[in-house]
């Protein structure tokens, strides 16, 4: 008798990592892309240890903004798809 459903377990780990860590990472990537551009050049010039007191996110680079938009859209699509999948998987036929 199996006490652990190993298939379910690895699915939860793999998809958990992809969605639970991967999607936020994509969001972070989007933020990074968004931050590229002339408006934040002074921040990048100061380097990682530079202590600039600003919370401007949008740097102004057009390529950056497009990439960011793509990243965010992928995230929204992934969430939408997951919700749909859960709905179809989650309504099992009654056991007879």
């Amino acid at each position, binding site marked *: *008798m*199996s*006490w*652990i*459903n190993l298939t*379910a*377990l690895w*699915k*939860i*780990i793999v*998809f*958990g*990592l992809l*969605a*639970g*860590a991967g*999607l*936020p*990472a994509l*969001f*972070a*990537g989007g*933020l*990074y892309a*968004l*931050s590229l551009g002339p408006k*934040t050049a002074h*921040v*990048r010039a100061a380097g*990682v240890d530079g202590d*600039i*007191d*600003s*919370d*401007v*996110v949008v740097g102004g680079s057009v390529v950056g903004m497009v990439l960011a938009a793509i990243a965010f859209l992928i*995230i929204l699509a992934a*969430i939408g798809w*997951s*919700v749909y*999948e*859960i*709905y179809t*998987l*989650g*309504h*099992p036929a*009654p*056991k*007879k």
Partner: protein
Amino acid sequence: MSNDTVLVLVVITALAFDFTNGFHDTGNAMATSIATGALGPRTAVAISGVLNFVGAFLSLAVAATIASGLVATGAVTLTVVAAGLAGGIIWNLVTWLFGIPSSSSHALIGGVIGSTIAAAGGSAVLWHGLVSKVVLPAILSPVIAAGVAACGTWLLYRITRSLTAGARTHGFRIGQVGSACVVSLAHGTNDAQKTMGVITLALIANGTVAKGSNAPVWVIVCCALAISIGTYLGGWRVIRTLGKGLVEIESPQGMAAESASAAVILLSSTFGYSLSTTHVATGSIIGTGLGKKGADVRWNVAGRMATAWVFTLPSAGIVGALAYGIAYGIGGTFGVIIDLILLAALSGFIFWRSRATKVDHNNVNSEWTGGVSPEKVPAESAAA
């Protein structure tokens, strides 16, 4: 042997449990967002309430587990269900009073198992279902969530290292709102389902519906409403412990934690695993503490939680068994009514006790001073 009066009482009690589940668990989705200021406390609980409602309709898999995978439905009578609910509610309220984010799921399951054993002996419990769909997921899920959250946190800080701290906070606060919403949805898919499962169990025990049925639509609607209203009223005490007591978190950590929780909960719901969303959320929050260099995890608070968790299933079980004993000893419908009156009285007492150390949307974010209720500093909470 059907008894519709008792059935109605049981359904009402189940909805009461669902309600306590709502406010006990609001923190799982919203504590990190409230703690970092991504969402105002009242907005957060309102959104969470609505999404829990929606989530409750998404997946019936967990309800099925509860209704037919844990106890032999033939051994379950209405009294057993009522007593089990009483066990779950009392444990939920006691832990809420102390601001301990314990598992409502385990409180409920523990209560029902306890009363089932009291009524019909250990053989009526489907131990395999219990272990494989409840206990093992309960142990493994926070560990998985912690791992996912730790990876996520590390990645987030790495990818955005060229942004200023202010920009990072600003950007991730928006991310936090999104991820907190998904967790609320996820919570609806897992937790509202439990109560639906219990009500369905009661309906089967009463002979109102056939064995193996899915939860009827009115059950789904009522449970969805109860949990969302409970969520909206907000478990400020637990929110405080999760948001401030465990790890002092920043926005990226908040987002990493909530995303990890959402993913693990949703994935598990599809497999019909009744998780403790609380365990998962706590695991995630601790994971973000581990994933960020220099972050401080208050291990003594985590230790208190772990102790509460280990005790939850058996304690709720004992209360459930006791409740069954009282009802059975008095006998019949009257026995169940006495049980429920005792339950209401105890609940009222606990609530009255909680007023002395009130936590609400005004002081939920106050400095952590070692215990769930912040010290009374009127000037500070006005400025917070």
